[in-house]
């Protein structure tokens, strides 16, 4: 590091010297020369040669030669992608030959590691993944999280649908905690910021899709992002770091001459995408027996109505299933009371949503000089998602500055102010996808719902016969999807506003006490204030009852952070170097929230005031506050030998208020080393760089605030105050979850740095998993915070990058990464054989963890089989008999393989950039598929419905039995064509020959629940367990950079225009009905269950970028 500094100084002196010359001899002369690659000595075509500050320039020809006319004393800038930019001041020489250093001179690159400590990349004994600002902003991703898909090895991204306002989860190197957060710590310019989780309690916990803290961070202001993956990399963050750390460095001022101005604008259109493959042949209705028996329809599922004296038919609107009459285009009376042709609405699902947009404009100015640097940026985002009713906008102001107060003392300032407004966050569509009461029939037009969800007087829709101010507007026939009408009421009538102000500010002072001895101190605060206002209008007239509500809430989060580090950097001998750091840091997190709401409705219609509360007597307010403190002493010691062998030790002694007094302090050590064998030995010439590294460390995951603490509950019965202890017993002996990780890796570069490779192997175990263990109530609690078990992750990560083609006009860069993780629950506490994380549909399926298996096995009941494995069919009902004695494993929710491939192709001034990412090896529980398949919504359920789709013909004999042998049918007997005979044997061992109609098969095999005691004896959930493999064409950017000379004419240094798109299409996916990514919730269990979030979207638009 020190050698690099002195080189830089040297360079500066030389440049200064040239400047002096230049000022004396300012005259025009012609300079020519040849540009070569410094490592291979090959000539470089297409190198940009510009006269700095003048707007003129040229580029090298096919042989790397150039020629340009310049004023003496001016500066020539040589730049070429993949090489370090060089400047040469023109003196007397008319020939300037130059060897450009490939950017693999990033050998000396400095990486910001834990606590903002800078280390040379080559000295790192652990893996980090770096992503540049360009990668983050190229397709206008609304936040940096969703820009990371496929770009960093070992990093898995899942983002909740709902666009710019929805949470993004980052998962590094597999699952580390069974019960608590798996989200990494996020550090911006050395400051830990609030992130948090969202939607962990499912629909019933919170109906709107929330964001988390990271989505507030403006991607435009990010210069560089580094992911500290393993325990060795993140050990200095102690108990925060079990899930890895994302270290973000923001852009700084760099423009030395004049004022640097950058501007960009992106506009994206969002459209609903990846919609379920619905069938469009049959309308609403159940199986024949139910249609006729319970609804009085004819055998085809038609009911007759008399409207204005005319007989007109209609299907059974009350049916959630789609086994009714076939679409024929003839008129029917709709549930809205109007006459419609009886046709399918292929796009009705899509039309529930709208086309949204995201418009982001950014302008930044920067300036640098001897005095320091400054950058200010303003970003405005306007967003409307695909759900009607929602709106969001955000203003981000970012100011960073470094002030060199004198040569030994500098101050860094950072100020990031985010002001945002969100109106009606996206509403979870769980009641539409996972609930029969919200199923949109194949006949329904989305517009009918938009027309009918409210009455002309603005009240909630009314069903037939319900008292109403406008009885003739009541829904005409009892229809099923009332929850869909309700959905529009909640998204369009309810007014839900959120106003958020967030200020992340920091001040850092660095004092160079003596050469190599520095003291740095930092104070930072991440402060958020959120105000929420909810206005639910009266849904019925006051004369019919009370309704409506009003609430106001405000909350405040504050994270106060400070650190101080004393560092000492000393070259001990020619060969030995030493760097020591010692420091202290602390963090205090505070949350305060208060809200007030009306009780039992609004007593004056749509008067939004607490004074309108119908019941003003009962409690209508809440106030919460909580606070957390963590601090730590830490130290590091690094040794280097000959600049090719490095070893580092770190230690952190951390104390936390979330741990019981007396045992609230823990020590987190690490050690890592690296060896640059390409510097130590002479290697074949095609190897440019070679490094091996090895690291070990311990990090932790402390229990959440107050979980361990035991205190008394206080409540009242009839106003009499009482004390009780709660059923959950904290634990005054709890220890943090502790992750021990070992990793080895290598980094290599070949063929003149045209090809690079990085590979890592890691193995970790996370001991003392903390869980709310259910304990026998006889001990005096129902659950107890317990250190219960051990998890293990073993994985490999690899990334390969290079430039396969590089000619004067054409260039192709490729970056790819791949990682495979194997998770295992090693052990659980004695007496605990299984942890149940989710119980789906009253025990029809479970998500569990068992020792020896990865977390998250999916279990359900399967059909009975005989000794030969043949499935057994019920001799009466003709459906597979289910073996309810035992649940079998049918899948696992933990993904094994994630990765991505990025390509950049450039031809002259045109470029194409695209990213493909993949996620393989996990299953999800698609409850929505179970219900919708059973309801005959999908195309695949056309199978067996008629002869064209494989149905067999049968007639119903006098005993009500379906007979396939239609030759025996009595004359005049009606022949049906929707029969099937399931493959399998009857219990007596003979081949099954029982005919069942298609509708009964689907309705009984794929339905809610699985329990013979409740009359659901044939339901099975294995079909709802869907493999969730996908390869997605994630990002595309096709653009054009204006040639410099043209750009100059319109006053720009650089102008790029691009067509951009993200989430474009799937190259391959196994889950067809729903987008594999539309799951919500930060908890790993929730995100493995398809429970209806909102429609997935595809974004396409345009991006403009200019610097002046």
């Amino acid at each position: 590091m020190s050698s690099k500094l002195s080189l830089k100084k040297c360079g500066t002196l030389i440049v200064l010297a040239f400047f002096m010359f230049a000022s004396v001899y300012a005259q025009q002369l012609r300079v020519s020369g040849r540009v070569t690659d410094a490592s291979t000595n090959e000539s470089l075509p297409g190198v940009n040669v510009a006269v700095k500050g003048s707007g003129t320039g040229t580029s090298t020809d096919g042989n790397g030669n150039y020629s340009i006319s310049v004023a003496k004393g001016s500066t020539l800038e040589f730049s070429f992608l993949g090489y370090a930019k060089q400047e040469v001041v023109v003196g007397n020489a008319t020939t300037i030959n130059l060897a450009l250093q490939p950017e693999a001179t990033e050998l000396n690159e400095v990486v910001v590691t834990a606590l903002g400590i800078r280390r040379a990349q080559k000295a790192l004994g652990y893996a980090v993944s770096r992503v540049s600002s360009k990668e983050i902003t190229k397709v206008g991703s609304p936040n940096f999280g969703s820009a990371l898909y496929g770009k960093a090895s070992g990093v898995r991204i899942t983002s909740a649908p709902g666009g710019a306002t929805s949470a993004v989860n980052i998962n590094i190197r597999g699952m580390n905690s069974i019960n608590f957060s798996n989200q990494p710590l996020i550090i911006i310019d050395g400051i830990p910021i609030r992130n948090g989780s969202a939607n962990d309690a499912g629909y019933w916990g919170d109906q709107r899709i929330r964001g988390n803290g990271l989505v507030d961070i403006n991607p435009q202001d990010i210069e560089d992002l580094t992911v500290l993956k393993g325990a060795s990399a993140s050990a200095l963050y102690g108990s925060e770091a079990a899930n890895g750390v994302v270290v973000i460095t923001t852009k700084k001022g760099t423009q030395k001459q004049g004022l640097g101005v950058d501007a960009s604008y992106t506009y994206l259109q969002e459209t609903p995408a990846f919609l379920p493959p619905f069938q469009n042949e049959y309308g609403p209705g159940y199986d024949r027996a139910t249609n006729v028996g319970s609804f009085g329809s004819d055998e085809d599922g038609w009911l007759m109505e008399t409207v204005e004296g005319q007989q007109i038919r209609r299907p059974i609107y009350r049916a959630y299933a789609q086994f009714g009459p076939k679409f024929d285009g003839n008129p029917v009376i709709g549930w809205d009371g109007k006459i419609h042709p009886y046709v399918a609405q292929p796009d009705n699902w899509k039309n529930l949503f709208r086309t949204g947009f995201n418009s982001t404009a950014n302008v930044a100015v920067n300036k640098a000089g001897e005095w320091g640097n400054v950058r200010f940026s303003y970003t405005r985002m306007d967003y409307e998602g695909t759900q009607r009713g929602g709106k969001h906008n955000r203003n981000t102001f970012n100011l960073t500055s470094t002030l060199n107060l004198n040569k030994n003392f500098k101050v860094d300032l950072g100020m990031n102010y985010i002001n945002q407004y969100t109106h009606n966050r996206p509403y979870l569509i769980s009641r539409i996808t996972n609930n029969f009461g919200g199923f949109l029939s194949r006949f329904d037009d989305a517009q009918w719902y938009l027309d009918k969800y409210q009455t002309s007087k603005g009240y909630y829709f009314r069903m037939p016969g319900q008292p109403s101010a406008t009885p003739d507007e009541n829904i005409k026939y009892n229809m099923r999807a009332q929850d869909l009408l309700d959905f529009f009421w909640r998204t369009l009538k309810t007014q839900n506003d959120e106003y958020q102000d967030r200020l992340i500010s920091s001040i850092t002072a660095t004092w160079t006490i003596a050469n190599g001895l520095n003291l740095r101190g930092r104070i930072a605060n991440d402060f958020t204030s959120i105000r929420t206002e909810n206005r639910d209008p009266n849904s019925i007239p006051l004369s019919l009852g009370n309704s409506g509500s009003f609430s106001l809430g405000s909350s405040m989060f504050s994270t106060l952070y400070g650190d101080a580090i004393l560092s000492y950097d000393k070259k001990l001998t020619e060969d030995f170097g030493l760097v020591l750091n010692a420091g202290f840091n602390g963090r205090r997190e505070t949350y305060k929230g208060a809200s007030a709401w009306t009780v039992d409705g609004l007593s004056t219609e749509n008067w939004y005031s607490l004074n309108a509360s119908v019941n003003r007597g009962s409690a209508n307010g809440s106030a919460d506050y909580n606070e957390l403190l963590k601090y730590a002493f830490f130290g590091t010691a690094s040794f280097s030998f000959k600049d090719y062998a490095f070893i580092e030790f770190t230690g952190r002694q951390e104390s936390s208020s979330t741990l019981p007094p007396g045992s609230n302090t823990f020590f987190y050590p690490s050690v890592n080393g690296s060896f640059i064998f390409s510097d130590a030995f002479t290697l074949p010439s095609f190897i440019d760089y070679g490094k091996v590294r090895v690291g070990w460390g311990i990090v932790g995951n402390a229990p959440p605030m107050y979980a361990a603490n035991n205190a008394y509950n206080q409540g009242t019965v009839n106003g009499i105050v009482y004390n009780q202890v709660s059923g959950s017993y904290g634990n005054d002996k709890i220890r943090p979850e502790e992750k021990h990780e070992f990793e080895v890796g290598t980094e290599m570069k070949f063929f003149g740095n045209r090809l690079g490779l990085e590979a890592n192997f890691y193995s970790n175990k996370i001991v003392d998993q903390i869980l709310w263990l259910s304990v026998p109530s006889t001990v005096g609690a129902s659950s107890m915070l317990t250190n219960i078990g051990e998890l293990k992750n073993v994985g490999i990560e690899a990334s390969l990058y290079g430039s396969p083609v590089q000619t004067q006009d054409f260039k192709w860069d490729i970056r790819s990464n791949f990682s495979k993780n194997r998770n295992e629950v090693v052990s659980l506490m004695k007496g605990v054989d299984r942890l149940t994380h989710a119980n789906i549909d009253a025990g029809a399926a479970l998500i569990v963890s068992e020792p020896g298996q990865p977390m998250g096995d999916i279990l359900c009941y399967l059909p009975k089989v005989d000794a030969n494995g043949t499935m057994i069919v019920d001799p009466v009902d003709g459906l597979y008999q289910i073996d309810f004695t035992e649940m079998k494993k049918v899948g696992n929710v933990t993904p094994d393989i994630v990765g991505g491939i990025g390509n950049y192709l450039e031809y002259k001034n045109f470029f194409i950039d695209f990213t493909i990412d993949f996620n393989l090896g996990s299953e999800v529980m698609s409850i929505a598929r179970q219900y919708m398949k059973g309801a005959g919504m999908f195309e695949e359920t056309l199978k067996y419905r008629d002869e064209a789709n494989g149905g067999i013909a049968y007639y119903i004999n006098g005993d009500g039995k379906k007979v396939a042998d239609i030759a025996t049918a009595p004359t005049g007997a009606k022949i049906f064509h929707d029969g099937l005979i399931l493959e399998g044997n009857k219990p007596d061992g003979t081949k099954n020959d029982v005919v069942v109609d298609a509708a009964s098969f689907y309705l009984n095999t794929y339905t809610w629940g699985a329990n013979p005691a409740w009359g659901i004896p044939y339901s099975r959930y294995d079909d709802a367990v869907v493999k969730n493999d996908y390869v997605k064409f994630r990002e595309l950017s096709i653009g054009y950079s204006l040639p410099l000379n043209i750009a100059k004419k319109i006053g720009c240094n650089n102008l790029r225009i691009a067509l951009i798109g993200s989430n474009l299409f799937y190259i391959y996916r196994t889950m067809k009905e729903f987008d594999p990514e539309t799951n919500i919730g930060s908890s790993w269990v929730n995100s493995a269950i398809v429970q209806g979030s909102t429609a997935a979207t595809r974004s396409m638009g345009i991006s403009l970028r200019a610097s002046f």
Partner: protein
Amino acid sequence: MAFASFALIFNSCKKSDLETLYPNPAQSSTATVENFLTGVIASANPVVLPLYWRFFVVEQPTLGHYTQTMGWVNSKDQFIPPAAAMDWRWNTYYNTLTQFRVMENLYNKLETANQAEYRIFMMAATIFFYDQTQQTVDLFGDIPWSEAGKVREIGNLDESLPKYDDAKTIYTTILADLKVMADEFTTISVPTFYAGLFAKKDFLNHGDIVMWQKYCNSLRLRLLMRGSDVMPTAEIGEILNNPTKYPVIESNADAIMLDEPGPDLWAGQEIRSAMETWGVYDVAPYAMVKNMMDNADPRLDITFDPNKNGEWIGMNPLENASVQNQKLSDGLVARYDTSSFTRNTFFPGFIITAAEVSFMKAEAIQKGFATGDAKAAYETGIDQSIDMWFGINETGTYRAPLDRPTATQISAYKASAAVSWANNTDKVALIATQKWLNTGLAQMPQTWAEYRRLDKPSFVFPEDPTSQQKVPPVRWLYPVTEKDLNGINYDAVKAQSDLNNKVFWDIK
């Protein structure tokens, strides 16, 4: 700057702050004995008050069938009680036990003088806790008791796993302790300040110490009578023959029940949803309706609503399910009375009533455990029960209360063939039948215990031939959490965890 930040950081990161921030500000770090008295009693509200879960999930599908206090549609495995029901009852009791243990610890930490002042709080909580304990023992037999509920003192799970105590020993221990308190009540004097505090915190008896004394002695009587086939009975006479020293509940005015209207202490809409949801949990039991019809019981019309034809017919358990279902859908079965029961938002939580005590007295005298007039006690019990149930009917608002029966009507009932003391030789059967009619649906654990002990009145049950449990159980099973996590102690009692294994007092 660097120094300033040093100062700031150190200042805001004091070690003492780690400790002050550890507790949750939404919870209280201190608690009082008096607040815990309220907490202990309130913790049992779920089993005392007529709430949805207790009726709908726990008692009706189990004890309601075994005691024929409700009608039901036969189904396979109907005599296997759902784990959810048994576990809930168990866990609710252990919550009460846990609250009681915490209260005991708070009390034990008081100084001696203060303990004397707070003694009445502890006595009241103990009596109430013992009542709950007896009910749990009667359902499960041996239970963890003396070592239970101590994880908060011990701090780790392994050492807190409690052994199971012998059921009879628990009875004996409780009886000895209740006797000490019964004697203490005869001389107790509570300082005015603490008497006032007690009155404020005791939402059950509102600080009426005599009521607690009567509760104490009545509970002793209940335990003694229940154990009378296998335990010494002398104490029964000591109590009943000395009403001055050991007063018991003698009148409906003294009945121990939670019967005040209020937001947290009443049935509200819960009893309605418990009995009307699914349309089958208010079906009248065949035997009870028949008994009341046959004897012209004045309570019939306030207990049941007739079927749609105005006939009083309960659901016959010997009919098969399809016949039963048909009758239900045709409206041919009587239902529990809408005004007294299903929509009675003021339906109280029963604890011990006067009639119950009178019937115990009648049985004790009849069996020679005490002196007195068994017939008088029996008939007093009937009078008290009729009076009490008409009182319940009068709290209902669904329709106007029915007129109370005249003295003549009541006398006629008491003289009717199957009720008359004089005309029947099996006096115990008479008493048992009246106990059953009196506690009925309202106190199902008591109804079931007395039915198991006396095996009277005699009920007929359909056999469930294909089930592993063909007849109604005689006890409940331990929760699976005990087997899984308290296996070390569970192993000693697992053989007892059998639906056909009788609890210790049930020797017939």
